[in-house]
């Protein structure tokens, strides 16, 4: 902040910080309370740095650039992942309250606020995150439309901070999910006109624990400090996978069934959606759904297998068909 000659006004902030010392015999994490004098422009990182410089040198955390570009300092503040160098303290705390700081979620903890990013980087490596051009290499630069490069810059804003992975609701229940960061990185190559392996990439991402496992909860969109919008990238890749001919997943069938239902009638036909998503020929799948279906029927709420048609369904059909034309 601009230096002034007057004494700097400070106020006492209360922080509750996750501590974990793996070297202590019966190592269990605990919370440590700190009271630290802060100025009104402080970020959460400023407060943590002040703690380790003046109060408790044993507090370990990762940080480097302080300018939201290196991605080191993602951690949970009051339960939500944030880049603490750009999180103003007064946006998450008022005098009298306590701010809770935890290491990023969905990763093992090394110590204190330092998480083990190995699973994160392993997943990034899985998507072959490097240019794979095919065809003759030009002597000068590859020609590429600026539009495409600007579009890529949006997803390249990703600084691999891990906030999205920390708060991903699928990773919470299934650590094998490849995760939003790796998928956003994969998209960066799928969308690069200079990469020659779009179809192969989509084919791999189409498999288990890939693009179809995202539950569309938007947590990654909400916490990303760089507006990368990982979920949107995953959605675009789903559509592109279908376009490349990968239509055999239940996810692809689910999407197609939904679109077809709206095309026919303007509304969603839930019973047909369930049957078509599972795969009409997938007898074991159909049978597995039967108990819930029968129970619903007995309760009088199994949705009719017939379409609920709206009066202007013809107009809606036209709109749907036009969108399919233009997207080709």
């Amino acid at each position, binding site marked *: 902040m601009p230096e002034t000659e007057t004494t700097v006004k400070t106020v006492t902030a209360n922080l509750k910080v996750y501590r974990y010392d793996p070297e202590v015999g019966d190592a269990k994490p605990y919370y440590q309370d700190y009271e630290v004098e802060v100025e009104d422009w402080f970020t959460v990182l400023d407060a943590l740095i002040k703690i380790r410089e003046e109060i408790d040198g044993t507090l370990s955390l990762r940080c480097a650039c302080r300018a939201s570009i290196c991605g080191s300092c993602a951690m949970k503040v009051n339960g939500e992942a944030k880049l603490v160098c750009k999180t103003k303290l007064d946006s998450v705390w008022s005098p009298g309250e306590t701010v809770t700081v935890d290491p990023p979620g969905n990763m093992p903890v090394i110590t204190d606020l330092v998480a083990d990013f190995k699973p994160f980087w392993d997943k990034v490596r899985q998507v072959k995150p490097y240019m794979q051009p095919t065809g003759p290499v030009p002597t000068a630069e590859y020609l590429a439309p600026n539009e495409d490069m600007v579009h890529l810059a949006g997803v390249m804003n990703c600084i691999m901070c891990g906030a999205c992975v920390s708060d991903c609701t699928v990773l919470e229940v299934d650590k094998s999910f490849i995760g939003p960061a790796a998928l956003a990185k994969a998209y960066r190559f799928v969308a690069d006109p200079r990469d020659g392996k779009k179809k192969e990439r989509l084919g791999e991402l189409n498999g288990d624990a890939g693009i*179809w*496992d995202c*539950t569309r909860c938007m947590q990654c969109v909400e916490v990303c400090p760089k507006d990368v919008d990982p979920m949107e990238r995953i959605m675009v890749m789903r559509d592109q996978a279908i376009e490349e001919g990968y239509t055999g997943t239940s*996810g692809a069938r689910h*999407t197609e069934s939904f679109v077809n239902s709206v095309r026919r009638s303007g509304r969603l036909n839930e*019973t047909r959606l369930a049957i078509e998503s599972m795969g009409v020929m997938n007898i074991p799948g159909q049978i597995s759904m039967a108990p819930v279906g029968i129970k*619903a029927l007995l309760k009088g709420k199994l949705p009719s297998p017939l379409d609920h048609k709206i009066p202007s369904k013809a107009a809606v059909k036209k709109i749907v068909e036009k969108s399919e034309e233009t997207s080709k």
Partner: protein
Amino acid sequence: MKYAFWPGCVALGGTPELYQSTKLVLNKLGIEVEELTNATCTGAGVLQEKNRKLGDTLNVRTFAQAEEMGLPIMTICSTCQGTMAQAQLAVIKDDGYLADINADLADEGLEYHGDTVTKHFLWILVEEYGLENLKKHFVRDLSGLKFAPFYGCYLIRPSDALGFAEVPERETSLEQVIESTGAEVVDFKGSKACCGLPILFINQGNSLKMVATHTGTAKDLGADAMVTPCPLCHLNLDGYQGKAAKKNRSSAIDLPILHLPQMLGLAMGFTPKELGMNKHMVSTSRLSEQVASPAGV
């Protein structure tokens, strides 16, 4: 107060008890609605996955219809509300995009001018009807009961599409309404998590883990029921709770899942049967008994 009413596909299909209880409650509160019978499905994020512009076009079509009626829109489904809000944001900030979409609506003589407001019934209660006015219609005191809130992803993310900066009360709206009935809010980590329905047909194992985690945690913390403003969440949390428990826990969960209007209806004196609580997969009979006992009418 009058609204253009968008019930959503599922309230008219897999969760008829939501439609049923909503109508009863709106009537009691004196809120008039006119149903948008010619509107389409909002797309629920699935249509948007295939083609974002298609989803936006269909939702703007609905906005235009409401605009013609001169009424704001009321939704009763988190997913509908969120999808519509995202479409609204997309066209409000880009005139060219809106013009493009309006061109596709011209065939039906529809045009959206950006004036329609879309709010979930939950927000309308807190922001427009007012909790003090709401309480005047309560005849049954629900204190002694503990309810766990479950918002549904689309009603809380992304925050910039849902107006949280302008109306911060929305972030605690469900807790506020629960408390207005006298019931205690069960504060648990999963209230803003995902129910797993979008991956039910894709990765059922994970979907059920989510159901088991959130309903299980709430139950273990002493909740008598979970309350949700989203019928899609209800489908998974109620419909698949039994299977989820079997696959992920050693004990049953048996946590009744109430639609928001059902909770309100109980406070207003309607019977569980009137509110369609007999149509749930997870039995609500114990809850009905708790409600009917001493504190009842």
